[in-house]
């Protein structure tokens, strides 16, 4: 059946949809399509949302894992002729993935450490070759953990800068249909997981990435921290993994490339926090960082859980206290705390406030949330790696207060989501959930307001519910979608081809529901760059970040086609778009969604004139 009036993907190309929208697209659909497609059923009243400022009535935010912009779009050449800043356009690599004329800009250096954590480190000279990549965090197709030995698929004499992963380990074949068995088989192409933690990433980037040449040295010397099982100063179990990239010119990630050609991407969208999953997901839901507290009042965490990135005596750069089972908090208002002063100096030099409140210990790395999925409070203590319930406002409670519907769908949250996994892997529910559910990337489970109010908590659902809601047209106004671990694209236990398959599946389902698709925007991104190299400028927004660029697609009938947006954005930009579209105020006095939109410098569109500033994503749309 053709239903032109509601096929707005074609409509958007035909009609000049540039007037300012104060009503929902549903109104338009009636006006435009009244005669063309009158038989289209009206959507149930329950899914109608408050009036929107744009035609977008449904925003779907899909958050995968751990790719930088250059890691994925290294050699992307926009079909539209748009400009892009990546490894190829800067001459760092050639289209065939080999070192380009300006390779030296990304050649990695060794540093001369001092007695304390430092960001201004003297360089000792370039690596001759990258240390051989390791199998850190890699699982095999039977989901067994491999030992973090050298990954012999890669040579020992890689050039000392970016290298094309898929020259040595082929890009997996498309996983169609996206079954668990297909995903598992593709894991034979998984590769090592670089460190991606707060103090490491500050050191790797120096804050603004002006001299991006310490990605490997920091990874190799600090690793993921000694407070992890199996780590030792003698062997932090890391090699040259950070410098790996995929090559779209060689056919890698063809679907992700096609999405970029057809819709809009940003080449200046950033992870909000230096480091990893937990803090970045938290920022996606709050534009802020979690705080150690007792019943809402800031408190001092167990000493063993406070970061100390000063090097252990006798080591080059192996932090004294760092890792999942140790340091994760930092009291960043206090310059005498380990690791804090060098970062505050960078902020001072740029005239940027820290956003650190006195006496607050902020969580800058991964811990599990203070509630479990059943709503039980989780115990705290020096040997319990959990952060307390959070009292900060989240986008979820803000939307509910405004009467705007929302849900957060995470893969593996419930038994229905895990039925295939339990059967295929012959695992209990708990064991299957352990493999698939992203418990450091489910920030609303940390929120007291969400977890103690049944009408909010019931909106935390699984992917089976997402499929039902898409098919039935019952999708809420704002949804967040987090894939299962194996589909997340995270190196080690997933691959980019798996995330590709997941996106294809969800995007395809939305596009198959034409009334839904006609007024929907899908934002796809990653939580953070996973510690992979990126060449892009980083805006120092506050003590916590930003971090390197990560990919972002806007997939919508209203996306600018083939557009590569250079306006500076980070995860707070998603919240700014939501707040613009549904007329919400910023979440709190201190949250980053208060930052202004960038004033662009025509000479360098990547750096806001009015820093710190982050956009609201509207520049990727054509309304």
């Amino acid at each position, binding site marked *: 059946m053709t239903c032109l009036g509601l096929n707005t993907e074609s409509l958007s190309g035909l009609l000049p949809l540039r007037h300012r929208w104060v009503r929902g697209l549903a109104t338009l659909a009636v006006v435009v399509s009244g005669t063309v497609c009158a038989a289209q059923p009206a959507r149930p009243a329950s899914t109608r949302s408050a009036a929107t400022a744009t035609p977008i009535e449904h925003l779907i935010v899909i958050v995968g894992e751990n790719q930088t912009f250059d890691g994925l779009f290294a050699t992307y050449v926009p079909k539209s002729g748009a400009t892009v800043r990546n490894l190829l356009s800067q001459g760092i690599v050639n289209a065939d993935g080999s070192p380009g004329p300006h390779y030296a800009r990304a050649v990695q250096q060794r540093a001369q450490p001092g007695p304390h954590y430092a960001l201004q480190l003297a360089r000792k000279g370039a690596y001759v070759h990258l240390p051989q990549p390791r199998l850190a965090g890699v699982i095999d197709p039977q989901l067994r*953990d491999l030992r973090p030995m050298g990954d012999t698929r890669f040579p020992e004499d890689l050039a000392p800068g970016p290298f094309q992963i898929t020259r040595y380990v082929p890009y997996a074949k498309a996983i169609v249909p996206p079954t668990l068995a297909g995903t598992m088989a593709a894991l034979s192409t998984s590769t090592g997981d670089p460190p991606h933690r707060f103090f490491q990433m500050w050191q790797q980037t120096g804050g603004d990435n002006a001299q991006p040449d310490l990605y490997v040295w920091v990874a190799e010397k600090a690793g993921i921290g000694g*407070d992890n*099982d199996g780590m*030792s100063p*003698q062997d932090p179990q890391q090699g040259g993994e950070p410098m790996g990239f995929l090559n779209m010119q060689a056919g890698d990630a063809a679907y992700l490339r096609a999405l970029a050609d057809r819709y809009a991407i940003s080449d200046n969208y950033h992870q909000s926090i230096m480091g990893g999953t937990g803090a970045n997901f938290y920022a996606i839901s709050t534009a802020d960082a979690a705080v150690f507290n007792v019943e809402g009042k800031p408190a001092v965490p167990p000493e063993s859980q406070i970061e100390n990135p000063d090097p252990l005596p006798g080591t080059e750069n192996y932090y004294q206290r760092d890792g999942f089972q140790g340091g994760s908090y930092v009291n960043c208002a206090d310059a005498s705390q380990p690791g804090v002063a060098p970062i505050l100096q960078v902020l001072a030099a740029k005239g940027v406030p820290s956003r650190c409140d006195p006496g607050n210990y902020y969580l800058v790395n991964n811990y599990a949330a203070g509630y479990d999925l059943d709503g039980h409070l989780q115990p705290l*203590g020096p*040997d*319990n790696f959990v952060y307390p319930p959070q009292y900060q406002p989240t986008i979820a409670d803000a939307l509910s207060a405004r009467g705007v519907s929302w849900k957060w769908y995470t893969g593996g949250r419930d038994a229905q989501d895990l039925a295939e996994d339990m059967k295929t892997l012959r695992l209990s529910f708990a064991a299957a959930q352990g493999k698939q559910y992203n418990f*450091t990337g489910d920030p609303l489970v940390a929120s007291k307001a969400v977890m103690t109010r049944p009408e909010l908590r019931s909106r935390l659902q699984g992917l089976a519910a997402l499929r039902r809601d898409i098919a039935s047209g019952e999708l809420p106004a704002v949804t967040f979608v987090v894939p299962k671990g194996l589909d997340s694209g995270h190196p080690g236990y997933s691959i980019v081809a798996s995330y590709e398959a997941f996106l294809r599946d969800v995007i395809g389902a939305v596009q198959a529901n034409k009334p839904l698709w006609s007024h929907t925007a899908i934002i796809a991104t990653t939580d953070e760059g996973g510690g992979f190299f990126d060449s892009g400028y980083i805006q120092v927004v506050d003590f916590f970040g930003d971090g390197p660029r990560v990919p972002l697609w806007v997939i919508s009938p209203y996306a600018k086609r083939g557009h590569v947006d250079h306006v500076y954005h980070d995860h707070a930009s998603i919240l700014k778009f939501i707040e613009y579209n549904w007329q919400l105020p910023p979440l709190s006095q201190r949250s980053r969604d208060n930052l202004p939109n960038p004033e662009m410098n025509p000479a360098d569109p990547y750096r806001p004139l009015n820093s710190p500033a982050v956009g609201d994503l509207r520049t990727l749309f054509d309304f």
Partner: protein
Amino acid sequence: MRAGHLLGLLGVMMVHTAVLAEPLSGAARLGSLLFHDRSLSASGRQSCASCHDPSNAFAAPRTAGVVMYGGPALDQPGLRTVPSLRYLDHTPRFTRHYYVSGARESEDRGPAGGFMRDGRADNLRAQALLPLLDPVEMANGNVAQLARRLRATPYFNEFLQLYGAGKPLADDELVDHAAGALERYQLEDPAFHPYSSRYDQFLAGKLELSAQELRGLRLFVDPAKGNCAECHPHASGAGGRAPAFTDFSFHALGVPRNPGIPANEERQFFDLGLCGPRRRDLQGERNYCGFFKTPSLRNVARRRFLFHNGRATTLAEAVRFYVERDRLPTLWYPRVVGASLPYDDLPVDLRGNVNSSDAPFNWRAGEPPALDAAEVEDVVAFLQTLSDSH
């Protein structure tokens, strides 16, 4: 084979195990007096050390039976075997989900932690009062009785000096300070964490293990063989800590019922660990019934009775249980009308809680054993390297 080579093979990192002998704090010295004081029991004949024998790694004395007897007349039987008090330093508080670092950056190990075999005490301070007040152990009827006994000790003045600043102490304050002193004693005195086993010396590169012990270590670790290290980690942990040989996790192993435990004379009685009867806050959580905490295997060779109910009496028997339970159930469970009655220490409706997914518990009837008889002996030889030197 050189020790260093094997360490590399197994992914074992060098660990720092040296425990610097610093002088005990005043509280710890007081805790030492309390620990050995029989006058703190209703019987007047039982101290902490009576059941947690310092000469036997602070587990039950070698001469004791499967359970200890307490109460005012020392005629009340305990319910479970006595756990060792060694190597409890990094026990987490009891949690339904124990998150640790792993291949996925972090992983959820399920229910874990807490003190006592059912994890019902959050820390050593809280734990210390449980035996003191338990009617089948030291049997102080209440805090007031215990405080009275504390006030009658010859070292009571030490309490006043340490905690009273010259002022009198209320009963509950006094008892709480006694618990704190017992905690300090266990945390500070190297006797509770000597790391003096042959295996510790092997990790430090100071001695080599025999060929049989090394074979046993490999079988202990190998996921396709013993897979013991899955719950009893043998390698250094976070922060380079020496291996504790426990991950503090809870499991229902389906250990056969032990008729030697007096409480089991009552056929309808079942000791269900996490969901009771001693622990009371999880009684409704049926999926936890039969779960007991994984103990450290350090000094396991010194135990006369193994498992929470003491059903095994030799190390070989305990190891064989893991490889025979579901393959040869008739060796382990009573026969009823020709068939064996598996997991007979759990009510029928709770037997689904028994762990059958972790190797070697996932080996089925008719399959070859995960460990043959000689390999069981090798694992036993390795376990004997975990005994601390005297």
